[in-house]
Structures are given as structure tokens and as C-alpha cells.
């Protein structure tokens, strides 16, 4: 019963498939049987796999993908792994809890741990406003420089983190309120202009000496109690030093005028309750080592 069109390879005496590529022909050798058996086994395996594992995606009308009898779920696995990791880290977190901030920063191993933890926490929670590496933005202080509105010590940073700034629902939050001098009619518009010249004069940038002279008594009456006689600020009330090179809301005369007219009074949330104590400590150490720590 052989095919009359059968093509026999002269060299090997084996029938060819009749396929020819540049004169090279494919021999029609039979497949090893164990290959075929392996293939059947893979089919059985695939069916078993579809039964025990999630295999069919959520098609229209199904609501969810098939879950499989083993209930395997990557989502659940990740959640379990995260829980396990937290338990595992508990050991080190406890050391962070027990150690003082100074101890954490001076112990090289604890410091490395706190910094690694702090860096990722900072990225998740703080960098949105303060920028990666604490580079800051208009209205959001740079954390890498040596200028602090409230406190740049380890403990001070921890306090700020824990209770926030002007955070309504926290009793211990850092609080102060600069009046809206122009908007609330405390000062006239021209007095605000004069005061702006007075503030510029701290950094020798005023060109209107008459205005500076006019503003001097206003400064003494309205501003000096918080920002100091000579504008060096007061950290206990978060009043910035107006004589240094850094301006949180911009250094241009109109920026300064707007601050006096409308006031700024920015907010930072209290992290107590949102982050655990070990995380807050790690963050405090991280922020302290960004470069400005006192």
C-alpha cells in the first residue's frame, strides 16, 4: 500500500515528506513514542492545572475569573508575605522603639536600618510635597538645607512629624497664625507696600528708604513680636528668619507683599496614628541626615 508518489531519500533510504527547501528535503522519520506520551501527559497536566489553579479570566457575565480548587491568589500571597515581613522586621523595629533617636543615629547598624526604612517611608508619604531627597518646593520647606521654621534637632523633627503643623484634629500640633494684614483691614494697602520694602531691606534689597522709614513703627507694632526686632524670626512660633538667603514663598517684592497681605500659614498633617512609632522615628532620623540636621 505504498504511495506511488513517495519520494525516497537516496542517501538514507528514508521516505521524505515531499517538502523541499533549496533542494533540501525533510525526512519523514517517526516521532519517538515517549514524546507522544509526554504530550498526552502535558494535556492531562494542563486540564488538572485548569481545575486547581485560577485559569480562565473573567469573561463578560462571569464577574470574576475562575478561582481554582486550591484558591491560589497572588494578591493573597503578597498580603501574606507583607504580613510575614512585618513580623520579621518587628525585631528591628523594637530596637528602634527602645533606642533614643541619638542612639539610632550614632549606631552605624541601627542608622543604616533606620535610613533604609526612612527612605522608603519618605518616598511614600512625604516626597509628594517635600520632593525626593527633601528638595522642597514653593510653600513646602527644603529639608536638606540648614534652615528650619520650627526645629531641626532630632527630637524637634520627631515632634513635627508626630503632631504636624496647624493640623486641626491634633491638640499638640505646632500652631501659630500670622494675621491677614491687608485682607482683614489691619493695615492699609500702602502700609503693606511699605512693610514689604522694610522686609526687603533685611537683605539689603530695598531701594525706597522713605518707605523703610515709614514702615519701622509698623514693624515694631505688628511684626517684631514674632519675627524679632531685626527680622531673625522665632522658631517657637514658627516665624521664619527674614534675613537669610532662603524664601519659602519666593523672594520677589510681590511675593513678600502677598504674604503680608494674605498671610500663608501652611499645614502639615500629624503622622501619629497614621504611621507607627518605629516608622516616625526612622523618618526623623532620615530627615535629620538629609543634611540640615542640628
Amino acid at each position, binding site marked *: *500500500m505504498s504511495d506511488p508518489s513517495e519520494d525516497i531519500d537516496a542517501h538514507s533510504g528514508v521516505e521524505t515528506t515531499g517538502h523541499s527547501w533549496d533542494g533540501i528535503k525533510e525526512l519523514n522519520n517517526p516521532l519517538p513514542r515517549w514524546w507522544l506520551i509526554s504530550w498526552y501527559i502535558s494535556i492531562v497536566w494542563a486540564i488538572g492545572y485548569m481545575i486547581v489553579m485560577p485559569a480562565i479570566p473573567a469573561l463578560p457575565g462571569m464577574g470574576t475569573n475562575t478561582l481554582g480548587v486550591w484558591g491560589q491568589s497572588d494578591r493573597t500571597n503578597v498580603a501574606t508575605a507583607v504580613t510575614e515581613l512585618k513580623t520579621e522586621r518587628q525585631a528591628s523595629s523594637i530596637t528602634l522603639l527602645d533606642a533614643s533617636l541619638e542612639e539610632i543615629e550614632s549606631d552605624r547598624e541601627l542608622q543604616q536600618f533606620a535610613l533604609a526604612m526612612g527612605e522608603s517611608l519618605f518616598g511614600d508619604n512625604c516626597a509628594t510635597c517635600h520632593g525626593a531627597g527633601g528638595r522642597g518646593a514653593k510653600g513646602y520647606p527644603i529639608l536638606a538645607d540648614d534652615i528650619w521654621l520650627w526645629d531641626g534637632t532630632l527630637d524637634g523633627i520627631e515632634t513635627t512629624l508626630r503632631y504636624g503643623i496647624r493640623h486641626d484634629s491634633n491638640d499638640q500640633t505646632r500652631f501659630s497664625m500670622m494675621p491677614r494684614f491687608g485682607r482683614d483691614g489691619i493695615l492699609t494697602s500702602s502700609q503693606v507696600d511699605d512693610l514689604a520694602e522694610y522686609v526687603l531691606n533685611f537683605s539689603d534689597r530695598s531701594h525706597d528708604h522713605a518707605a523703610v522709614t515709614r514702615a519701622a513703627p509698623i514693624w515694631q507694632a505688628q511684626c517684631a513680636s514674632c519675627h524679632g526686632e531685626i527680622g531673625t524670626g522665632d522658631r517657637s512660633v514658627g516665624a521664619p528668619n527674614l534675613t537669610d538667603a532662603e524664601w519659602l514663598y519666593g523672594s520677589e517684592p510681590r511675593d513678600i507683599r502677598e504674604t503680608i497681605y494674605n498671610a500663608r500659614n501652611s499645614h502639615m498633617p500629624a503622622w501619629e496614628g497614621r504611621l507607627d512609632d518605629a516608622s516616625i522615628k526612622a523618618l526623623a532620623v532620615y530627615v535629620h541626615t538629609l543634611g540640615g540636621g542640628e
Partner: protein
Amino acid sequence: MTKVTLNLHPSAGKGGPTPPPAKPLYEKRRQIYPKLAHGNFRMVKWVVMAVSLGVYYLIPWLRWNRGEGIPNQAVLADFGSEKFYFFFIEIWPQDIHYLAGLLIFASLGLFLVTSLLGRVWCGYTCPQTVWTDLYIWVERAFEGDRAARIRLDKAPMSANKLIRKTGKHVVWLIIAFWTGGAFILYWHDAPTVARGWFTGEAPLSAYWFAGILTLMTYFLAGYLREQVCTHMCPWPRIQGALTDEHALNVTYRYDRGEPRAPHRKGESWEERGDCIDCNQCVQVCPVGIDIRDGPQLECIHCALCIDACDQMMTRIGRPTALIAYDTDVAVATRAAGQTPPKHRLLRARTLLYTGLLVIIGALMVFGLSTKATFEVNILKDRSPPFVRLSSGDIRNGYTLKLVNKTTISRDMTLSIEGLDEATFRIIGIDPEGVTSLNLQVPPHGVDRYRILVTAPANDSDPQTTFTLHITDTENGESHANRTSFRRPN
């Protein structure tokens, strides 16, 4: 002009239904019962087996003193601390290109050997060949040689058969376990992991890999054998492309052997070839082919047919080497009645491979002998690129990474050159505002520091390139690293 014909339906257009295929689509595996060969090549194979298995099983137990606190195992892939130890060579993650170099060197070595001597790798040293050979040796010890094994397999089950078969599988499994067990010794301290394996203290991966390697050895060497070479391994295909008509391959000299025919004692040898069709070459073949069919994909060039044929030729009083290491071109020339040219070892491709081997080898030796034992990396902070301090000065942050590959603690001095009026401090190691600072780098370790460099503002110079010098206080070894200082402009 190239013509491609793809005739999927040979009978299409001729009318009438396609007749059913004459051959089945798949076939049962033909069981191979290799006969024991005697001779020089068999002896060489026993020696190679003993040496290579000895190397594999014993190397993890060799010790190599590297100093306090560093593993003293001569060959160790230490994943935990991300280091690879090979006698005096130590590969850190940043030296990974040496491993690539080693692999390139090994492949070029294989290319060279293949172009000179054909598939000697397959025939003598491939683990699949070596372990299969060992397993067949065990099989022979329990079930006898070829004829006895064929008889035993055909015989119905009996106490004798059961004992012989059971014994064989037990020994196979012991060898398999020994093989899988030796594998994990390369990844951990051998004595520790060997003891821990039995007391339940070894890492889970050690059990897992020992188990996988045990099963793989048992199935690949015990059952799959030549099927691995013929149907799974890509190497026969690659070697097929690397060998050529000038390579020495195990070859049946058809110019001398043909026409073959059985021969009775006293008959004339005139008008016929030396091959007496005794089939000994086929019986000893571990892959079950007939070498007289010419070069074949399945042939692993183990040369056992040479031994078998030589033995038979000696017995009937004819010259040996009817099957021998020979080149295709020599056999073809002789068959055409001419004298074959002298065998040329120096050919374009062997010279090319040798040249490349020498170049890669020289590069590796040069690289390894001049490999830095102390590395300094400095990475400038990208965010913030700079900060302005209350004094108006500008500060930049850097991460300094020091890699100490030596086994002693190093005292290094840090100083800055090329940045006017610059001072620096290192977080965690105050004080502020110094111009040079000492750092201690632990032996065999990596240390990271954050450095803050402060310099006066200068609107006309937004970016200054400067040099950070790290100098060993004891031997004066100095590393200069250039980086930049950014200012607002």
C-alpha cells in the same frame, strides 16, 4: 535562482483521495543493550570517568585559606554574600564579566576541540555520557553483558530477575543521590551543609536541589540515555555545524571495508573488503547506530566501535583501524584511488579559534592579575542637586561607596581638590567643616557614606568639576574620583 517548493499535498491535483501514510507517525523506542568493549579507547573512557567524577565529587571538600571570616572552601558559589570563590580567584558581583569571559573561553575551547577532533566532548566528557556509562557499568554488574541482559528482559518475572533488577535500581539511586548531594556542596560550606542535610538544618533549597538532581541523574542516565543526545540536546546540531571534512571523526573506512561480506577461515581476501559483517561495532554502540552508515547525528563519537572492530580484526589476522579516527576527506580520497593529503591540524578555523582563545585568555589573566582590591564609587545626589544654606553658601550631597576586597581593615583619608574654599562633612561622622577626614573600611566589606560638600556661592560658575581623593594612610594607595559641584545660576 533559488526555487522553493512546498508541496504539502503530494496527491493534490492528481485526483483521488490521499492514500493513508505507509509509516506510523511515532515509534516505540528501541531498547539498546550496549556490549562491553575492550581496548584502548574503553580504557581512556574509564580513566576520564574516574577523573571527572572524582573532580565533581571531591572538589567541594578542598579547602583554601583566605583569611579570617572568609569562607575557606576552594570552589564555592556563595549566594548569601554574593561572591564566587575559585581557588585564588574571587569574583564579586561587580566582576561578573569574568564569569562571562570564562564561559566564552570554554565555548571557544569546545569549538577548537571540535574542529580538530570532532565530538570528543560528547564521547568522553559530557556528564550525560559519563553518568550513562557509569549506569551501564552498574547494569552490567547486576544483569550481565548484552546477551544476558536481552535474555533477562525477555524472561518472565522470577526471584532471580527481581533481585537483579532491584539491586540495579538501588545502586542507581544511591549514585543519583550522591550526585545530587554533591551538587549542593558547591553552594554552601560543604561540611556544614552535608551535616545539616541529615540533621534537618540545611536550607530548604538544599533539599529541593538535591532532590531534583537525584531524580534527573536517575532518569537521564538510567532511562533516557541516548534519547537525551538525539532528541533533547542542541549540542549535536551545533557540533554538526562546527565539524568539517578535515576534522578527525570516528569513521568507518569504507574504502578498505567494502564490499563487506561474512568470511570463512581460509577463504581468500581478494576482491572484497575487510569488513566481515560481524556486527560487533553495532553491538557495543551506546546509541544503537551502525557506524558504517557514515557520519550520523546520533553518533557521540565515543570510539567504542573502534575497540570492538580492532579486537575482531586482530582475531582474524587483518590489520586494525578499519574503524578509526580519520577525516572524511582522507577516506574519500583513498576511495577514489589516490593518496590522501597529510592531515592538517593548522587550518583557517583552528588558527582562528586558537587566536581567539589566546586573546580572551590573555585578557582574563591581565584583568584578574590587575583587578582592583579597593574600589571607590562616588554618586552625586540628583535630588536636590544643591541647597542654599542660610549663610548663602551652596551645598551638594554625594553618596560614597567604598569596596574593600582585601582581608585587612583599611584606614583611608578623604580630601578634596579643585573646589575653592570647600569644606565637607560626613553624616554620622561629624565634625562639620573639615577639609580632610579619616575613614575606616572593614575587611572584605562595602561601606556607604553620605558626604555633604559646602562651597561659597558663585553665580558665574554653575558647575565645577573637582576631585575627591581617597588615600590609604598606611601604604599610600590613592584613588582619585572626579565628580561635579552644582550651584544655582
